[in-house]
């Protein structure tokens, strides 16, 4: 979907902050992702048009960052760390548990990530980039369920506060 009028205005004010419009690609991609839930092909083309470059260029920039989702990812992005520290204290088990539990749930997108820099309280995960630490599989699932049921308020899928 293309930018809503409000988001288009926001995009333009972001562009105005940079001497070179090209520099606004990343913040614009966040706005688009928060609006649509993921970074659509149309959004990348529109961003290219707004900053005066080709869609291929925007695609190249955005695909470098794993936080831009170029496929629909539901409402909740659950990032489970399986790097060394988390690995030894149960990260992979959390990942497996969440993967099984939400396999058929289009609202929840579970992904495996590298170190979240929360090793002190491993194992760790993020839900829409909000930290949850010192987990066991059931606890992690309960947290995700709380977000689903509205007990916890999720951030946007780009991690921005709604």
């Amino acid at each position, binding site marked *: 979907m293309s930018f809503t009028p409000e988001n288009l205005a926001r995009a333009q004010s972001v562009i105005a902050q940079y001497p070179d419009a090209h520099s606004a690609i990343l913040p614009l991609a966040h706005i688009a992702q928060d609006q649509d839930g993921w970074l659509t092909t149309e959004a990348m*083309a529109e961003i290219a048009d707004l900053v005066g470059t080709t869609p*291929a260029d925007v695609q190249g920039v955005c695909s470098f960052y794993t936080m831009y989702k170029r496929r629909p990812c539901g409402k909740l992005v659950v990032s489970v760390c399986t790097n060394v520290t988390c690995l030894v204290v149960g990260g992979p088990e959390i990942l497996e548990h969440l993967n099984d539990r939400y396999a058929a749930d289009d609202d929840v997108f579970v992904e495996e990530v590298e170190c979240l820099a929360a090793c002190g309280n491993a194992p760790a995960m993020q839900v829409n980039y909000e930290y949850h630490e010192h987990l066991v599989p059931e606890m992690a699932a309960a947290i995700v369920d709380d977000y689903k049921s509205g007990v916890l308020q999720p951030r946007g899928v780009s991690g921005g506060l709604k």
Partner: protein
Amino acid sequence: MTAVNEAKTTVTVTIDGKSIEARPGELLIKVAQDNGIYIPRFCWHERMKPVGMCRMCLVEVDGIRGFPPACTMPVSEAMVCHTDTDSVKAAQDGVLELLLINHPLDCPVCDRGGECPLQDTTLAFGPVESRFVEEKRHFEKPIAISDLVLLDRERCIQCARCTRFADEIAGDPLISFVDRGDHTQVLNFPDDPFSSYFSGNVVQICPVGALTAKPYRFKARPWDLATVETSCTTCAVHCRGAVQSSSNQIVRLLGVDSEPVNQGWLCDKGRFGYEHVHSAARVLTPRVGGREASWPQALDAAVAELKSAKNLHGGGAIAMIGGASGTNESAYAWARLTKGVIGTDNVDAQLGDGIAAEVVLGSDRAQISDLDNAAAIVLCAGDLKEELPVLFLRVKRAALELGVPLVDLSAAPHGLSKYVTHALGAAPGEQGLVAEQLASAIGGATPANETIAAATRSIGSREGNIVVILGRTSLAERDDTVVSAAAALGALPRVRFLSALRRSNVHGALEAGLAPGFLPGRVSLDSGRVHFTSNWGSVPAERGLGTEGILRACAEGKIHVLVLVGADPLADFPDRSLAKQALDTVGVVIAIDAFETPSNRRAKVFMPCTLWAEQGGTVTNLEGRVQRVSRKVSASGLALDDWRIASELAQRMGSDFDLETVDEITEEFSRVAPAWAGASTATIRNARDGVVLPFADHLGEVVFRRGGSSLDIEYSLSWEPIRADGDDVAVEASDVDETAEIDRTIATEDALTLFVWDRVVAPRSIPQRDAYALRVNVGRKLYDGGRIVAESPSLVGLKKAPTMLVSSADAARLGVLSGESVKATSSRGSITVELKAARGIAPGTASLGFSADGTGASELIDASVSVTDIRVETLR
């Protein structure tokens, strides 16, 4: 790196114990290479900025920890560098082993096999065995990133040569790296292919077989190819190339790096257009009255027509159009036949779509390389990206990389618009007027407006010449607006002109005298009369007609025989209705062509001629540079070179040219044509970058080849700039093999002055446009309806139906939606065309592509009026 003051000083560096003088700031990898030390590399390309991506060029430098990449390391005083120590070798081993981790070992089925830098480098510098036993990454094997280029991502080593080329050189960043880590891949955006006009270059410079060109894929193995150096003559830039054939079929054209001309690049039309040479539509046998005939029958039939017209009505009843698509030698032979034997001056190599020969031949000229350090470049031509693609690259580079101001007189947006620094916003037909304002401001008068003032200031602040790129701004305008622009600007001291006439060897043809009022070698009919009468026997008594006049005279029944030498007026002449009238009325058409066209379909005599790569000789590009083109495959069918047809006709008309070979014509040309004085076949053969006309003024610039006359390309090096061997400076004739016979003295006894244009222009008035009309600008497109595109299977699909661009204000006023078909009507006729609203189009104007197939814009244009105004109606 490019700062001027650095050029004067040098630094001394030591590479592998060898002491070397270099310019400070030059890259270590280049300094080493220039001194015979090859540092392996994949990502570094001499014509692009270094990125240090592949790490293949690691070296050791005393005092620097680790292994810096030589491609990003500028040299400095007393630098000591090692490229072949054990630790460097270990580093190279490591890099190659890593690169090969994900590289499939499918060399036997890879197009690059046999000329693959990765293969060669691995052999020369790499480890013996891989320790990698895991699964390699997999991608869908090849995907089309454009209609011409396929990408096999598994083979890619992420050197970024292709993506950098697309962005930095072509200005079309339509491919980029997508994803990261071991998923990194080159990709275009969905539904937005890499449809750059320069896409073929990435195939040539890719160091592996990741990028392949559809026309060449699986056609041949590099070691089976025979190669010869030549020039592309698809347009008038004449980019150097190496044409390769297998079993008498051309299979590939590679770009050769010629500093003054193309710096290694080719456009796709030039690179892949060779296919038309082998088209099944070629006419391979002479025809008389539509029936196949033998050569003697065809020549006799043609001569009978020529003789009878001449005897009954005089030489002036015969006209010739064309001659711009062959060699200089062919053009000369045709000039001698028409002007010296038939006795007609109704001869024109242009098809009413160029500019007056007086202006092209008689103005101070610039060379392409002058663009690099010009005070400013003034654009007074059509869209260079569409018409002269590789010249577009050079102008873009000058503007973007070298900071040369770009002053634009164009009336419609074009490929260079985004690089323009001073857009003077001339309306269609008014380029002359704006040029006059600019010229008077540069000359010191008060500028007419702020844009002109700004342009004048930036020109004034810079040294060097003002290079005016001069071509036909629009086919919907007469050339007089360009001619008056040239007159105004030409009066300024620092101005030099670079012609932007686009057709193949049109400059060679004009220099050979295929224009009314001219004789070979840049002399006018009057001043060359005595000289050429003594050489040829006779010349026409008075000045004849150009193409427009010829067509009018045909229509009026004053011309009885029209000779078309590779010319198709119905497709190329801007005013189709005049061309049609002419061809319907004229009694006899004699055609020399390789294809049947609407214009020659009812030719009384059709004589098939050879095409590019079937004929050798010399050609002259838009800066006046004479270079050799080579024959690579044998003539198709019974086709003959155009010059031989001319000389056979002459003989049957009772005048023996006594010219048996191309070289003999070159020799005669240099003997009789003043601009060619001092040339010889040996000079041209051995001049690495050709020679600029007039020869006498430019012999000092010639760089001679060290030996042999053909470029011997090692196939493994096609990914690096391919250069013809030559000395850096001109050497004495006696030092060079085969050049001993060069005669640099110019026969003075009949020295003629070269033609100089007097810059006198007739006053012109531009009609008022009424408020409901749109004034239309018509420009050529690269992929048009011309023969080369139509007869090249890989290119024909790239042709798009022309659309008419208008401003969104006009679209709204007319009540039409962008993308809707409309009826456009001029005083001449009407056409149905798709209309689009576009940025950059001034209200009250429209921009339309020329189809070059006898439809579209040419039905709207009236050659006798100075601008074309149209009315647009919806079809709803």
